[in-house]
């Protein structure tokens, strides 16, 4: 959004290294034994630069929401790794220290109704967290915050159920920015909203970023939403990041087969381009994170799968072009066209689609 944010201090606000979130699967009623782990997030490295927006995309089950909650330490146990916020390792914080840290990193939730206490008036739900962090609250605080998110002052004495979906999401945002955070993690901030309202809320987020210098991590499954708001985009598949690049770069020339498949599913507004567009259909569903495939996690569904390396060696993220990192052994060959998709059946050139 505003890429010209730089300066002397560390440009990276949030630095995630080797983050793993494994949930134990237990059997037995009295004596519980662990029979396996759901590897929801399995070794994620992520850098979010100050004042920028990082988009995190992936289909459901890719672990993107768990990653967001893991970073915020929200009811999710971290198995391994570090989460460094402004030089402080949050992963090791406990109790009161963690609680105090929370004012700096806020979350916007997917379902704005469910995330607002139905018994709290707007005034209350905005001021309560501020009081919990010892922020000054005076008579103008609520009105000022409401105005900032585009709600009338008169909303202060109302209750969440009296608002529309978009207005509730504005309340959720007002509540979060009341704590003056530097980082806001938005977990599917608009997917529960009507399409007509989505743009308004996204524009609000953008406007607030410019006014308050916020840094965003936006989690979404909607590629259009992510492209609209993000400076950088990370693509997640089955607990790991498979590709990360600047937003335009990623959308223009995706390198990872999974990203290519995702991009090929987005319709193009230009009908001529749309007709020539190749679509890559992925077979089957995302595998279970309790028993992820060996080697490259994507090899079971990858149309570019090769005989060697893919099913026994897990690719690491490597920088192919400046700022463009991809976790695929054969990214160069795929990009140059040296490797073609194995099965022609998976490639569907969209003839003029029947309406």
């Amino acid at each position, binding site marked *: 959004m505003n890429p010209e944010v730089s300066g002397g201090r560390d440009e990276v606000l949030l630095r995630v290294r080797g983050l793993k979130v494994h949930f134990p699967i237990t059997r037995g009623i009295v004596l519980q034994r662990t029979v396996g782990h759901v590897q929801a997030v399995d070794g994620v490295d992520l850098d979010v630069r100050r004042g920028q927006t990082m988009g995190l995309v992936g289909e459901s089950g890719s672990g993107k929401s768990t990653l967001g909650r893991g970073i*915020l330490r*929200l*009811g999710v146990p971290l198995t391994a790794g570090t989460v460094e916020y402004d030089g402080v390792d949050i992963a090791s914080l406990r109790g009161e220290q963690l*609680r*105090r*840290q*929370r*004012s700096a990193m*806020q*979350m916007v*939730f997917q379902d704005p109704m*469910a*995330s*607002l*206490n*139905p*018994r*709290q*008036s*707007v005034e209350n739900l905005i001021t*309560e*967290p501020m009081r*919990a*962090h010892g922020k000054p609250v005076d008579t103008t605080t609520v009105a000022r915050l409401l*105005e900032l998110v*585009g*709600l*009338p002052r008169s*909303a202060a*004495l*109302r*209750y969440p*159920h*009296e608002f*529309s979906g*978009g*207005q509730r999401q*504005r309340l*959720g945002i007002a*509540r*979060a920015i009341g*704590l003056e955070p530097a980082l806001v993690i938005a977990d599917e901030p608009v997917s529960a909203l009507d399409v*007509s309202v*989505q*743009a*308004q809320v*996204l*524009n609000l987020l953008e*406007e607030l970023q410019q006014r308050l210098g916020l840094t965003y991590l936006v989690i979404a499954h*909607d*590629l*259009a*939403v992510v*492209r*609209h708001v993000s400076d950088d985009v990370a693509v997640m598949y089955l607990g790991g990041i498979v590709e990360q690049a600047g937003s335009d770069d990623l*959308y223009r020339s995706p390198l990872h087969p999974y990203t290519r498949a995702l991009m090929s599913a*987005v*319709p*193009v*507004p230009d009908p001529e381009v749309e007709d020539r567009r190749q679509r890559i259909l992925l077979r089957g569903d995302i595998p279970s994170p309790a028993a992820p495939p060996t080697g490259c996690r994507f090899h079971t569904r990858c149309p570019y799968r090769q005989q060697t390396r893919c099913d026994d060696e897990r690719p690491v993220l490597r920088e192919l072009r400046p700022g463009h990192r991809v976790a695929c052994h054969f990214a160069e060959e795929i990009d140059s066209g040296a490797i073609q998709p194995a099965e022609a059946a998976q490639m569907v050139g969209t003839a003029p689609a029947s309406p």
Partner: protein
Amino acid sequence: MTAQLPTLPTGPAAGPGDGATVVGESLLRGAWHRLRRSPLAVAGAVIVLLFVLVALAAPLLAPYEPASTQWAGDVTPQSVPGPSADHVLGLDSFGSDMLTQLLYGARQSLIVGVVSTLLGLSVGAALGISAGGLGGKVDTAVMRLVDILLSIPSLLLAVSVAAVMGQSQLSVMIAIGVAQVPIFARLLRGSMLSQSRSDYVLAAGALGIRRRRIVLGHVLPNSLGPTIVQATLSLATAIIEVAALSFLGLGDSDPAVAEWGRMLVAAQERFGNDPRLAVYPGVCIAITALGFTLFGEALREALDPRQRR
């Protein structure tokens, strides 16, 4: 959806209902409005109010002193004098005025019902809050204790407590209260646990609100609905159980205290000749219990979040 989203203005959104009323409608206020519109709730409330009024004003309403046996001479082993100008509902088997006894009986039922329910509610709620709020080992320990209490039929539990503590009004109240403890504890713990999993609790955690405040300020108020309803319904059960305990001879040992359950016992041996002796207190118990039940059920519906919007 295309890659390019339309740019819509983010101007101030209009307030719902636009302006005229500024104060919003809280959940409780909404419940109150729904309650007033429900005929069952009004009927229940009228019965409950009448009952409470009668109980409080018994000394003013009653034509005679309670438990005065001055007309005992009129009672023969075969028959009890029926309604007359002096005694609107006739005499009871001890030769007291039936109406007076019934009015004072209401008093007794109210005291025992309210005190025992409050007792059960406060102990049960304390257990439920600690189990639902603290979780873990506390939860396991408390719930096993409650399971043990629940495995004993409530009337049997009440009988045992009354038998151990001896015959007194206090023991009746404690007996009935103890029998209600597990119900309240389970109910409150259950709704607190389900509320704890909701998004707004997670959000409160993300906002850095203290755990204690989340449990007592967010989870608990949202979990109280079913418990309030249960308390209202429990008043009905308690009144029936008071009668049952008295009927079993475990009630207040002081025969001067009028009590509907004991009136039923006394009516038992004369049921063949004078069924009205049993009918009057029986009807009183039934109507009172009905009133509390109607009101409780209506309250349940009014507090149900699905009734909203």
